[in-house]
């Protein structure tokens, strides 16, 4: 595990030194501005709308940061050829993948924590209402979901040639699952065989990242999701993350690096 943590540290240090986190401050400023205007409108419907907009911004920003960061990890190592002195040491390719995964996941978790913190502080100070547990639960569920996205992106970065194609494809796939995933079973019912079977298969195969989306509950103050359900969702995410990491390892382990 020592090697994996050493690699994780390098990923985080690179993001910090490359000033990638500075984008974070711009996004945070946008969220702060939007959230800060909540009290200005007075009308509860508009307040809810503004909060919904902020949460959407948090989701899109976190997804973009996660996908863009994970997509370039292994291709950049190969392109700059830093992978050679690294793999010439007693490091397995599996450890490289795990190190990259944890580095990206921790970095996206940190970025997400900053987003939620600003959102909570600004809206809380304006509305004099502090649903800390709700925010914490929303944050944890979204971070767990980002684990699946990170693993999927790492797999994409091995399969597709360029990081830009990985980013585009992954963003479309994840956005597609978020918006359409939950409706696929209904769509299947309205179609004849064999299309119905195909749509059902897709419905059962894809990771349902929309399960981790509790934005509506936070915006409308509907209260907490049962923590047991959250635990089950975490297990579901862990299974998919492990599956994608396994596929990444299978694709990477015999790949020639010359």
């Amino acid at each position, binding site marked *: 595990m*020592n090697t994996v943590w050493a690699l994780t540290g390098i990923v985080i240090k690179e993001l910090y030194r490359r000033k990638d986190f500075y984008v974070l401050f711009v996004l945070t400023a946008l969220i702060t501005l939007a959230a800060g205007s909540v009290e200005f409108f007075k009308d509860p419907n508009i307040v809810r709308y503004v909060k919904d907009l902020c949460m959407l911004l948090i989701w899109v920003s976190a997804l973009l940061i996660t996908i863009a960061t994970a997509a370039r990890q292994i291709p950049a190592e190969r392109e700059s050829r830093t992978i050679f002195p690294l793999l010439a040491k007693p490091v397995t390719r599996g450890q490289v993948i795990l190190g990259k995964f944890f580095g990206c996941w921790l970095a996206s978790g940190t970025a997400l924590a900053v987003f939620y913190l600003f959102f909570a502080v600004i809206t809380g100070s304006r509305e004099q209402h502090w649903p800390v547990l709700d925010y914490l639960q929303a944050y944890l569920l979204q971070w767990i979901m980002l684990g699946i996205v990170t693993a999927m992106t790492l797999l994409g970065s091995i399969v597709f040639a360029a990081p830009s194609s990985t980013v585009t494809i992954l963003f479309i796939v994840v956005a597609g699952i978020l918006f359409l995933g939950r409706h696929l079973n209904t769509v299947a019912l309205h179609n004849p065989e064999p299309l119905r079977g195909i749509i059902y298969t897709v419905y059962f195969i894809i990771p349902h990242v929309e399960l981790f989306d509790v934005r509506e509950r936070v915006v409308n103050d509907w209260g907490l999701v049962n923590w047991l359900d959250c635990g089950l969702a975490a297990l579901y995410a862990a299974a998919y993350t492990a599956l994608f990491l396994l596929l990444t390892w299978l694709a990477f382990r015999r790949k020639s690096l010359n």
Partner: protein
Amino acid sequence: MDAILQTEDLCVEYRTRGLKAEFKPALQELNLSVHAGEVFGFLGPNGAGKTTTINVLLGFIPPTRGTAYLFGIDVRQPIARQRIGYLPEMTYYYKFLTVEELLRFYAKIFKLPSADAERRIDYLLKLVELEPVRKRLIKTYSKGMQQRVGIAQALINNPDLLVLDEPTSGLDPLGRMKVREIIQRLKNDGKTVFFSSHELGEVETVCDRVAIINQGELKTLGRVDELVARHGANLEKVFLDIVGYQSQPAL
């Protein structure tokens, strides 16, 4: 004597691109043995298969057939690389780190205890004369300095076998002298050095034995002094004879 580095009938084939994919041999039944304490030169013209051999030894590419061992362990197992140091031809390091951070990272990979790692880092930075710039990012270093970072990282685990891929390529005479001194020092310390090079004068000076390959085939293997005596010429002439070089007639 036990071989520290050994290849047995090692073959590597590359698949050509295009509709009619063919297999092009890069290495053909290569048999090599490098023993403890010797400096072994691995020579050949461009495209002869030197880097391919090193790539197999370091696990970057799998052999098509045959096997390779480091310290008696199959090179496909990462533990085979626990006691080796590798200096690539070009400087491939994380340029957003300082040299100190880079060495600390590699020390962690080798699981060196923290105190030992710090002592080793101090020693290596003095050895490669990077002590005054240890806190500067690698991206701000000159090419010669970056090559010295490479030497330091290759020695972080105090390796028993050092694999050098054209270590003096692109260096100025001072840089070359420094690398040669380090190889000599390692040899005096009883370490084994395996290096590929185009600098035949340098090879003749520091190597005990050499192997010459051409088009993936091992052409000759032996002690430098014996090869030179057998051909009655210096190593450059021996090399040119073996790879079949014929000078162009005068215009």
